[in-house]
């Protein structure tokens, strides 16, 4: 069992509903492959440090999951490549320190970025 974390940026042209649907689509890919989805975070529309595809903002999303299948990351990334609304993605393996760090992050122990905590509260309410 390995834990992974993937961050991807969606096209800012999408409506909020479309962005939501796209995220759900990727979560479904994971659940279908019997991966355990630990955390889904929406950071919302964020300004990027440099333009990608001539766009200066993007919807940032984060999915944390655990799986035993070594092929799943490949299938997920193929899905990312197929979807034109995904501008950038990054999948990383989490080591033991990262898992501890992420667990603390989820609890909101690092409240440097207030935006993230508010979005998470909305998720809990919804």
């Amino acid at each position, binding site marked *: 069992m390995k834990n992974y974390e993937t961050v991807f940026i969606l096209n800012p042209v999408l409506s909020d509903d479309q962005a939501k649907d796209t995220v759900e689509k990727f979560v479904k890919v994971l659940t279908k492959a019997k991966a355990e989805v630990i955390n889904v975070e929406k950071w919302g529309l964020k300004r990027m440090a440099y333009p990608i595809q001539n766009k200066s903002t993007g919807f*940032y999303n984060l999915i944390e999951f655990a799986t035993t299948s070594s092929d799943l990351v490949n299938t997920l990334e193929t899905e990312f490549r197929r979807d034109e609304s995904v501008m*950038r993605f990054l999948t*990383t393996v989490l080591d033991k320190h990262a898992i501890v760090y992420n667990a603390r992050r989820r609890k909101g122990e690092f409240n*440097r*970025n207030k935006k993230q905590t508010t979005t998470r509260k909305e998720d809990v309410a919804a």
Partner: protein
Amino acid sequence: MTLMNEPIKRAEIKPKYCRFKKNGIKYIDYKDPDFLLKFINEQGKILPRRLTGTSWKFQNKVAQAVKRARHIAILPYLADSLK
């Protein structure tokens, strides 16, 4: 008058230390731009170990984190005046 070397005030030279070892930080988050900003210069280049005092082990992790942050456009690849 002959030229003399100025004596070095050794008390003023603070020994460098690795902040990760000292503070017990084990994981460097690539999603946190404010923290990573401490390890890059105005142009967005990664600062060398001899300036930050970071140990070899954590310098590699810092570099990895900065590169990841650049890929997802959290940090710029090149900049003019970051700070």
